[in-house]
């Protein structure tokens, strides 16, 4: 008889892939208790970490693709274990061994070839803005607007980018987009384990930014925000990054933007994981919403640090989740329970996921999904 | 000699004991395996009684009370109705089969029902075999 664990080679591979945080874990199980998946099925992060500690992770199992990177576990972990990094490391090994689920592989391939996960042509990246008053960013332009692949290509999420453009123009801001020169920020594929792809996308983007003299970036998506602010500095360069809700909050506080039209809606705000738990941005979107006349802002259960992930982060957007297991369905139910007319969002992935749920649940006539910026645009007198 | 189960029966004074009594006065023939203990109400039957019965050598435990709504003390049989199913779930974790503990509602007029319950339970416990707990 022999002990097959600890399986040193496997453990070393995980450490090399950046997952050495598992060394801190003392198996208390708070992560398993916190993980939102357990609202709809069983998923035990603690068990996966234990298997990692032994070097016994099953790369073929579905469980390694379960984590949505919402960070609820990390926030509550008494030892500060960066579980999302461990999940990422395990997935890196799976990607190297080509053990990636098919639908995710399609999105990754698309990102690698055309710079966006949707399989859309790179040449069409700036089409969303062609009828709008948007110029191309050149050296000397003050602000780079990074729309994110999703608003750029998806007609449903497009309003998130177009709303920001309207505000920027109303403010007379000096901004531009890079259009076909930009690629996906790669935040989700990095969490999904394709480190090489992320590095190549980052290099392409940074080259474009540097060549065009970009200093300040305004993002529409919290994922791009997180990537540029926290991950791109690993490549030695730092840009000033701001999310649209922060920009709006700044304008409103300075009195430069005054929403005046009464909207008369009961609005619940859904904290996106990347804005909230990753970057502690909870107040700015709420300040923005509160400044709109006629809006009654209500809190959802599980809000702010406890916010319930929509289920779209870390590549999960491209993996099939059966109807009974959708966290976004629960979020819609919560919004309906607090009597909201509008569920306000700040992330394109949340937008897609929650909209899917809204439609499949048949609640499109009682609840609306609106981006925070979109609501502000509705409230400014033209 | 064939195995004859020892079944302890907790019968409530007002309905089920009277029902058992009726079976007797009506000269009904039924299995002799139940040892009757009269309690004032099925709600008096604590899970500890059931455990003790098994510990002391019983192969099965029968609890009889008034039909829901007819309890002489109003709520007592509802307590039994909740305790016994939960106890049975726990006993299954102890490897004690479901048929060894049985809760039935028997009214004072249901002598025949009491007899048929005893016959049925005796047959089922006989099939299961002796309890013989390992302690």
């Amino acid at each position: 008889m022999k002990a097959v664990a600890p399986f040193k080679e496997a453990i070393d591979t995980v450490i090399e892939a950046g997952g050495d945080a598992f060394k801190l874990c003392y198996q208390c199980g708070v992560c398993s208790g916190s993980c939102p998946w357990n609202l709809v099925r069983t998923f035990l992060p603690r068990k996966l970490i234990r298997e990692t500690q032994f070097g016994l992770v099953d790369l073929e199992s579905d469980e390694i693709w379960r984590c949505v990177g919402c960070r609820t576990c990390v926030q509550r972990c008494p030892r500060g274990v960066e579980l999302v990094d461990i999940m990422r490391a395990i997935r890196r090994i799976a990607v190297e061994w080509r053990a990636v689920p098919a639908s995710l592989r399609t999105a990754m391939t698309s990102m690698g070839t055309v710079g966006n996960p949707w399989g859309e042509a790179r040449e069409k990246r700036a089409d969303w803005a062609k009828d709008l008053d948007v110029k191309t960013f050149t050296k000397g332009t003050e602000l780079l607007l990074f729309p994110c692949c999703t608003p750029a290509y998806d007609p449903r999420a497009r309003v998130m980018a177009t709303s920001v453009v309207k505000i920027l123009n109303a403010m007379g801001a000096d901004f531009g987009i890079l259009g076909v020169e930009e690629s996906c920020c790669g935040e989700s594929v990095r969490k999904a384990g394709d480190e090489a792809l992320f590095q190549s996308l980052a290099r392409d983007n940074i080259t474009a930014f540097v060549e065009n003299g970009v200093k300040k970036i305004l993002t529409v998506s919290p994922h791009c925000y997180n990537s540029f602010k926290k991950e791109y500095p690993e490549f030695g360069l730092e840009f000033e990054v701001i999310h649209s809700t922060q920009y709006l909050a700044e304008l409103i506080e300075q009195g430069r933007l005054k929403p005046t039209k009464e909207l008369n809606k009961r609005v619940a705000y859904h904290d996106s994981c990347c804005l909230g738990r990753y970057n502690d941005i909870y107040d700015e979107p709420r300040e923005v919403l509160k400044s709109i006349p006629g809006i009654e802002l209500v809190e959802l259960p599980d809000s702010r640090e406890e916010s319930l992930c929509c289920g779209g982060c870390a590549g999960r957007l491209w993996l099939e989740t059966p109807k009974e297991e959708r966290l976004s369905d629960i979020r819609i139910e919560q919004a309906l329970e607090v009597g909201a007319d509008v569920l306000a969002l700040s992330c394109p992935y949340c937008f897609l996921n929650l909209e899917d749920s809204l439609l499949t649940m048949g609640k499109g006539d009682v609840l609306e999904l609106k981006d925070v910026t979109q609501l502000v645009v509705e409230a400014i007198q033209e | 000699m064939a195995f004859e189960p020892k079944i302890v029966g907790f019968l409530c004074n007002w309905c089920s004991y009277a029902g058992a009594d009726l079976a007797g006065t009506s000269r009904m023939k039924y299995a002799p395996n139940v040892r009757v203990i009269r309690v004032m109400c099925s709600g008096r039957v604590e899970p500890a009684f059931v455990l003790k019965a098994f510990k002391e050598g019983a192969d099965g435990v029968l609890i009889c009370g008034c039909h829901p709504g007819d309890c002489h003390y109003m709520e007592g049989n509802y307590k039994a109705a909740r305790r016994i199913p939960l106890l049975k779930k726990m006993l299954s974790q102890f490897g004690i089969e479901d048929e060894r503990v049985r809760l039935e509602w028997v009214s004072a007029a249901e002598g025949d029902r009491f007899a048929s319950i005893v016959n049925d339970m005796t047959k089922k416990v006989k099939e299961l075999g002796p309890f013989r707990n390992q302690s």
Partner: protein
Amino acid sequence: MAKLKLALYWSASCGGCDVAVLDINEKILDVAALADIVLWPIALDFKYHHVEAMPDGAIDVCLWNGAVRNSEQEGIAKLLRAKSNAMVAFGSCACFGGIPALANFNNGAQAFERAYVEAPTNDNSEKVFPQTKTGVAEGELELPEFYDTVLALEQVVPVEYFMPGCPPPVDLILKVVDALATGQLPPPGAVIASEKTLCDECDRVKEEKKISKIYRPHEIIPDPERCLLEQGLICMGPATRGGCGQRCILANMPCRGCFGPPAGVTDQGAKMLSALASIYEVKDDKEIAAMVEEVVDPAGTFYRFGMSTSMLRRKRIVGVS
């Protein structure tokens, strides 16, 4: 007064009780002044043969923590019993079986199968198990016999005092140290805790015990002022001896029952089951079935610490007479 002779032994337990003794901090010096410790495997270098060489009754007090689940532990229990004037069952494992006694839902063979064959960290396709005697070139090696059933200390040797708790709280340990110092030990058979239930000690507001749903501890964040049982959490307070300082309650967590049954109660689990079913106010069969579903693991919840001293003691092993 001559120094007392004190022995401490660690049997089938986690070691927390030894840590609890050290938790008395600087008062350990008072203990050292009061007594000579003649056996303490975790801290001092005395061996079994030192104890064997003592005359009977030479040890004044033996603090025994841990349950008994193999022949070595039973042997040492009998040895220390012979050499000690007073045996103290220290901690829930020694008093009631404790967490190790949850192994009574399996037997020795199943435990070995899990540990040596099924565990994912082992490769034991040849199914090699530890043996009580193994011959090697140098002679014969012995291992203790592994019992099917985990026992409390008093099920192996007579015990004078019981200190419940997982581990016993520091203030109760100090109470015993004090009693030893002043020679004012309680009558034999005493449990060094309260004679009442935890509910008596608990400061929370208790209104009406009437629930219609049971929550698992991770499902809600309870109100820190109200009775936890009334909020639908399974708090073992009504069926648990008090005296622990309501430590868990103060941390807003329901009692797990580590102080064992209150005075006068033999089977803690049965009492709690009865109490829970009494206060869950539903009447029809469907609602009752839903209630039963909500108690996910009745045996593990109600007998978490008390399997050895419970009425059934262990899961039935069918087919063994």
